[in-house]
């Protein structure tokens, strides 16, 4: 049993986890902004799919990677704006409208794929970019510093998000609007402007999350490419207690257990495949249950705010 979990296997598992966590991170950090300001956006998966297709289409037609990424970000931003309009201006039920956005993204991305490409194939996406000196460090080098360009972006996002939320006035406004929008409003903070910003930012990041799949990690697009990933990302926001650093930890734990269950099956440990596949999700549930006591959601989460004029 000793030679099963060798050093090189562990390195492989950790590298796998880092890769797997990338789309979850982009989407979950984006959703964290939105939820911290009080808006629940369940449409993340649909926005990811639209972002994934947009990026894929640009790269498929022109080979322009940055252009694809930008289009994915733009499409995500627009869909985030749409969600913000529905939730903030129209004050609709956020849960339901989020599902609507998801269905729209799922169907539209497939419709566009069928009309414009209709043939499952791969493209040349963002490459793996080993960081010059750091990638030569034993153990940490292959795990952290020999990854895809968009993988680095996801991890760099975490300290930036933490900084914005905790150390800037903007972050203060976001948190205030999410806890007590009435009080924030009386102090002159525009609740709708803040929420528009956070939800659109969340959409932008979800679009990039989709692109990280279609033009970096998987280099392919097909119907329902994300397969529910966006919903897990939303769960990871709860898992991480609405804090970027803990969202990172949650994404890594989830992805590591996922990488582990693959490996457990590959080396032939006598665990039924159905049980192995369940483990990351069971872990998530257990953590959510255990942390339910200690962690409080933003008080105004998913409650519509109407200015009493």
């Amino acid at each position, binding site marked *: 049993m000793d030679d099963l979990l060798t050093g090189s*296997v562990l390195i*492989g598992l950790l590298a*796998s986890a880092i*890769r*797997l966590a990338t*789309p979850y991170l982009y989407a979950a950090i984006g959703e964290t902004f939105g939820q911290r300001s009080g808006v629940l956006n369940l449409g993340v998966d649909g926005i990811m799919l639209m972002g994934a297709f947009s990026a894929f289409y640009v790269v498929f037609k022109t080979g322009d990677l940055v252009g694809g990424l930008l289009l994915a970000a733009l499409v995500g931003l627009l869909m985030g704006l749409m969600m913000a309009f*529905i939730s903030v*201006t*129209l*004050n*609709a039920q956020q849960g339901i*409208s989020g599902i*609507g956005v998801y*269905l*729209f993204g799922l*169907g*539209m991305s*497939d*419709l566009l*794929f*069928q009309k414009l490409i*209709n*043939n*499952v*194939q*791969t493209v040349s996406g963002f490459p793996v970019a080993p960081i010059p000196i750091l990638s030569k460090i034993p153990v940490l080098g292959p795990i952290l510093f020999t990854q895809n360009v968009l993988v680095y972006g996801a991890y760099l996002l975490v300290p930036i998000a933490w900084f914005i939320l905790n150390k800037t006035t903007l972050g203060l406004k976001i948190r205030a609007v999410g806890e007590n929008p009435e009080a924030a409003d009386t102090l002159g903070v525009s609740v709708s402007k803040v929420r528009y910003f956070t939800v659109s930012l969340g959409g932008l990041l979800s679009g990039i999350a989709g692109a990280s*799949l279609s033009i970096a*990690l*998987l*280099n*392919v697009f*097909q*119907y*329902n*490419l994300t*397969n529910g*990933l966006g919903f897990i990302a939303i769960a990871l926001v709860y898992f991480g207690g609405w804090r970027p650093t803990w969202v990172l930890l949650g994404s890594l734990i989830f992805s590591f257990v*996922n*990488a582990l269950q*693959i*490996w457990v*099956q*590959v*080396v*032939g440990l006598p665990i039924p*495949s*159905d049980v*192995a*596949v*369940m483990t990351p999700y069971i872990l998530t549930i257990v953590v959510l249950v255990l942390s339910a006591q200690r962690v409080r959601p933003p008080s105004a989460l998913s409650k519509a705010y109407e200015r009493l004029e």
Partner: protein
Amino acid sequence: MKKVSFIVVLLLLVALLGTACAAKPPAAPAAPAEQPAAPAEKAAEPFKVALVTPSAINDLAFSQSMYDTLVKMQSQMGSDKFQFAVSDSMFVVDDAAAAIRDYASQGYNLILAHGSQYGSALKEIAPDFPKVSFAWGTAGDNFGIPNVFAYEAFSQEGGYVFGVLAAALTKSDVIGVVGPVEVGDAKLYVDGFLSGVKASNPAITVNVNYTGSFGDVALASEAAQTHIGAGADVMTGSAQMVVGAVGVAKEKGVLWFGTQADQSSLAPKIVVASQVYDWENVVTTMIELNQAGTMGGQNFALSLKNGGLVLAYNPGYELPADVKALGDAAAKGIIDGTITIGVGGE
């Protein structure tokens, strides 16, 4: 403001529904919402087939195999004799049941419930429409209902042949299998493949993992990475998620065997062969039986023997002649029954 928001939300809902419905490919000549253009003379009423599948028709796997068959039949028989409509991506069984019922009440002659999860829905619906033929795939049980056919694929046969080929091609003596869910024809294929490898060279290690889903491309991609990390230089897998695995195989120069549809377009240099499902004989027989008055009650299977399973070798990959001979011998052995795979039916 409330009234405006109500109207806007209503419009949005309509737009959403429109988009969701538009996801069905209009390539099908007869959309379910409208009656197909009936020919002027009553003499030749086209035979109308409806296809309901759980995944997309461009999934390079299960659903595409049946869609391609129907397209081929359409071009051969002509649209005045044969028409078909498709509702794909019906992975929610209730949606599929609604679609099946819709098609039945609109006068379609044969409805293909192309998903093993549709069984219980068919059991309920079929007795309500005794003049319509229903077909359930992949399955071997037609419930004894007189207007239900059942059809399946003996994918373990192609699996076995590919196992033999893989065993001959591997240099590291480690082979990787990326499976979706451990059920149905995916399991048959994997078990057949394992059987073929073991029969050729029991010393070869075959590592198998199931990702637990038919569509999780990201997990399939990581699974392939893990297999290659464990030393695999030949891989295979099933379901539409294998795109992820093939991408990794392409990157790392690992050989690939595909099933359900011809996957050589994904990676022309490393795909050795694909087991293609050709449903034409099955569908043609069902149509003939229906027109002769037998609405159902029979089971069909795709096999190497009846030509329903086609081993499509990738011309872009140079398969050594002696290895191909081994594969051909295995196929012949399966067809004349001298080789027992020990998996599944027949």
